[in-house]
Each structure stands twice: as structure tokens, then as C-alpha cells.
């Protein structure tokens, strides 16, 4: 059993207040959450039932023109120039007049892009010194997991973390979120983004979202463009698929009628549309994700799945995962909507506050150096049985 009340709230209050700052990729998020101090949390395994209240959840996304990716230095500039104003907005929304009331300021320590992470932590340190509020460094993926658990109340699900920078299948055991399977090269979000770039699909609101809409519009859903299917045991690799589908996309975009797959050899009439490519890519990539997830579920014999990370908002992925879970003794899939599955500050506050309540805070700013590589299984999960 676990005591989540080990570290009490400030000046005898009966609730905790935490500020969360996220900026590991192109989304800058500020969130403020509140946990009630409840006796039941003193001796239980209820870290997914904190009765967390969201006081504010503000976010600004750095978007580049269609066909362009986002570079660390421009992303960092975006975060740096918006961070202070977003914190002010969040405090206003949360109705917090005296920020020194906060129990903790939680920031994303990693993994992610170095410069954007750093631009956020400089402000976090300054706030911590000014308000005399202790800092907590949070692993970005653990943030996603704890947010998903709290929102969906899924007790001990296998977690599929799919975003621009990560693709991992994770299961909890012995105070550690173990990585059961992962991408051997690029993350799925990255694969979708680069595919969108080749086809000049807009980045607003996100390339992945636009691919999903195009896939729905695909007219002949019964015949797929055949793509490589590269699952290797519990892991998967996507660079091969990206390379192949990218070359198809280029041929399509430049009307290269010599490509037999895309254009009829005699008439030169286009056989495959952008929608078909989007549909085939999704069916292929998501089938691989569901397969490695099912393999991990069989391994730890669980029938619950939690999908976190930006790509988790994809309804088709959720559908396919749900269909798989139904066949595994009526399991369920849990997913959160874009307020939470896309990077946000609330998830960092939630995971950070759990660390804070277990007494894990930073006392020397030297421990706040951000890191691009921060594996999910390096975190000691004290708040779970």
C-alpha cells in the first residue's frame, strides 16, 4: 500500500496546488491542478483516483507553413516568447492571486528537444526562486501515463504511447513503467508528419489530424496500397515504410506516370489518390501498433489499453484498438481527447504532484538540467504499489 499524503500541502491547507510546464516539442502548455487531501490516500493504491481538479489548461502550438518541419531553435523562440504570458493567463484562469500558495512547480525534464525544454526550465527556475516554491522534474511520457490513468480511471492498463517523438508499449511492474516494445527507428508521429510534408498537407491543427480526415474521405477502402509491414517481435520499425510511401507520394505529387502502381500504364490515368495513400498508411501503421500492444497484453495478461500521446487522438486508431480489446476477454481501450492526449501542462502537473506527494522534490537547481534522452523506465514510480 502507498501513502500519497507523505508530504503535506502548504500551511496546513487540505488540498495541493501544482503548476505544470510542458515544452518538449512544438506545444507549449501550462496547467494548474488541485488534489484534495483525502485520508483514503494515506494507505491505498489509488494514484489513478486523485480526484484531480483542473484549474486551468492553456496551450500554444508552434506551427510552421505546410511542407515545413519545426526546428529546435524556432520552437524554443516560440516557447521563450510565450511562456511568461501563458503562466499569467493560467494563474488568472485558476483564480490564484498569490502564486507562492503553489505547493510545487513541475516542469518537463525530458525527453524531447533540448532548446525548447531549456527555454521553459529557465522560467521555471526563476519562478521557483521568486515564489520559493519547490521544483519537480517530470518525465514527459510518465506525464502522459498518469494523465491518462487519472482521466480514464484505468487501473493497470498496458500503455501505448504514440506521439511525434515516441512510440512505446509500456506496462507497469515493480515501481517501474517497463518498455515492452518500441520503435527501432522513427516515432509514428514523426513518420506521419514527414509523409504529410511530402504531400504538402497543412500543419494546422496538426499534420496527423489532416491525414486522418483525408483517410476518411478515401473512396475505395476495400483495396489498399500495399506497404511493408515491419513488426519484429515486440518492436517495430517505420523508416522503411516512410521511405516507400514517401517515394509514392513524390511520384503522385510530381505526376510521374511511369509509376505503374499510381498511374494506368496505357492511359496514364491516376489510379491512386492522396486519400488512398493516407488511408493505406494509417491502416498499415495502426495494425502494427495494435499488434505489438496485443503482444504485451498477452505477456502481462491484461485486457486494458490506455493510448496516450498526440497520435492517440486518432479515432481510427482507437477503433482498431477497441476491436482488438473486445476479442481479449472483453477488454476496453481508454483514450483521452485532444485536451489531454496532446502535450499539455496539466499532465506534467499531475505526474509532478504525485512525485511531490511522495517527497520527491528538487532541492538543488543543478538537478534541473533538462535532457533530450530520458527513458520512461528510468523513473522510480513511488506512488504505485
Amino acid at each position: 500500500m502507498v501513502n500519497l499524503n507523505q508530504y503535506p500541502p502548504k500551511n496546513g491547507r487540505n488540498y495541493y496546488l501544482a503548476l505544470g510546464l510542458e515544452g518538449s516539442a512544438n506545444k507549449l502548455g501550462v496547467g494548474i491542478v488541485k488534489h484534495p487531501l483525502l485520508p483514503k490516500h494515506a494507505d491505498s493504491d489509488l494514484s489513478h483516483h486523485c480526484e484531480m481538479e483542473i484549474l486551468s489548461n492553456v496551450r500554444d502550438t508552434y506551427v510552421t507553413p505546410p511542407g515545413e518541419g519545426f526546428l529546435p531553435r524556432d520552437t524554443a523562440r516560440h516557447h521563450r516568447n510565450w511562456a511568461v504570458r501563458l503562466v499569467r493567463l493560467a494563474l488568472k484562469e485558476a483564480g490564484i492571486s498569490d502564486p507562492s500558495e503553489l505547493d510545487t512547480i513541475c516542469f518537463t525534464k525530458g525527453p524531447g528537444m533540448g532548446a525548447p525544454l531549456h527555454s521553459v526550465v529557465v522560467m521555471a527556475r526563476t519562478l521557483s526562486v521568486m515564489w520559493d516554491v519547490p521544483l519537480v522534474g517530470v518525465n514527459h511520457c510518465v506525464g502522459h501515463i498518469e494523465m491518462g490513468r487519472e482521466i480514464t480511471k484505468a487501473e493497470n492498463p498496458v500503455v501505448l504511447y504514440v506521439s511525434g517523438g515516441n512510440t512505446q508499449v509500456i506496462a507497469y511492474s515493480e515501481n517501474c513503467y517497463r518498455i515492452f516494445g518500441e520503435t527501432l527507428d522513427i516515432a509514428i508521429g514523426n513518420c506521419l508528419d514527414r509523409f504529410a510534408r511530402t504531400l504538402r498537407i497543412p500543419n494546422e491543427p496538426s499534420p496527423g489530424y489532416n491525414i486522418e480526415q483525408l483517410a476518411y474521405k478515401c473512396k475505395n477502402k476495400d483495396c489498399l496500397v500495399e506497404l511493408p509491414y515491419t513488426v519484429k517481435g515486440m518492436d517495430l520499425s517505420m523508416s522503411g515504410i516512410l521511405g516507400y510511401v514517401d517515394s509514392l507520394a513524390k511520384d503522385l505529387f510530381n505526376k510521374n506516370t511511369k509509376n505503374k502502381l499510381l498511374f494506368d500504364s496505357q492511359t496514364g490515368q491516376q489510379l491512386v489518390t492522396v486519400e488512398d495513400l493516407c488511408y493505406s498508411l494509417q491502416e498499415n501503421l495502426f495494425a502494427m501498433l495494435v499488434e505489438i500492444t496485443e503482444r504485451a497484453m498477452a505477456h502481462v495478461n491484461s485486457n486494458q489499453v490506455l493510448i496516450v500521446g498526440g497520435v492517440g487522438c486518432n479515432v481510427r486508431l482507437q477503433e482498431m484498438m477497441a476491436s482488438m480489446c473486445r476479442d481479449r476477454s472483453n477488454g476496453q481501450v481508454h483514450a483521452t481527447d485532444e485536451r489531454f492526449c496532446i502535450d499539455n501542462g496539466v499532465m506534467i502537473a499531475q505526474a509532478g504532484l504525485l512525485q511531490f506527494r511522495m517527497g520527491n522534490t528538487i532541492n538543488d537547481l543543478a538537478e534541473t538540467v533538462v535532457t533530450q534522452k530520458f527513458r520512461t523506465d528510468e523513473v522510480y514510480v513511488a506512488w504505485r504499489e
Partner: protein
Amino acid sequence: MSLPLAVYKSPNVEEHRFQVDPSQDRYNTTNGTTTGPSAYVLEAGQIDKDKPSEPKRNEKGDFTYLSKLRMQLTGLQDDMNEYLTHQMELAKNKKLKQADEQRIRGEIDKLLDGGDGDDESEEEAKKDT
């Protein structure tokens, strides 16, 4: 209000002082000229929506001390970036000039001795002293 300043020294420059002249516009803006979005994004048609925040004013409506400091720092930073970029160009040209002399001398030698292979690599081999 004392002003931020900077002093630069290098093997080629005895000393160069950077001073703030509060009356000039470049020290009264938070939006520096050398800290904008990168070139490739602008070329792709990006409209910059992420400029630094405007300076803050106190109850009397004047800029706060720290807002003034931030604007002055922004100007000073532009000065330094421009100056140092210029210094980089000087160094590069000097290196190119040396490389040209080297190349010309090489070609003359080749004519004289009837050189065998081509000596392009010689230019890269020239390390910056």
C-alpha cells in the same frame, strides 16, 4: 538607471566597447532584429506570430525598470550579434584570401614541375592558423 554594457577583446581586436544609447529606437524595443525566426521558415511564408512580449508599464504608465532593461539588452544583443558576425566575415575572407594565394602558387608550381594528380584537397588541408 545605470545601463548594461559589454567589452570585447580578441587576438585581432584590442578592445571594443558596446554601449547603450537609450534615446535610440534599437534600445527601446523588445523585438530584436537578430533574434527573429530562422531564414528557411520566413522563406516558406511564415508570418511571425511569436514576437517577444511588449514591455510592461507601471501604474504611472511608464515602462518598468526591468522592461527598460530588457529593451536595452535587446539592442545591445543586436549590436553584438552584428559586430561578431562582421568579425566572422573578416576572418573568413582572410582565410579565403590565404587559400587563393596558396592555390595560385600551387598552379604555378604545377606548371613548373608538371604536377601529376590534382591538388584540390590541398585547399581543404589548409587549417585555420
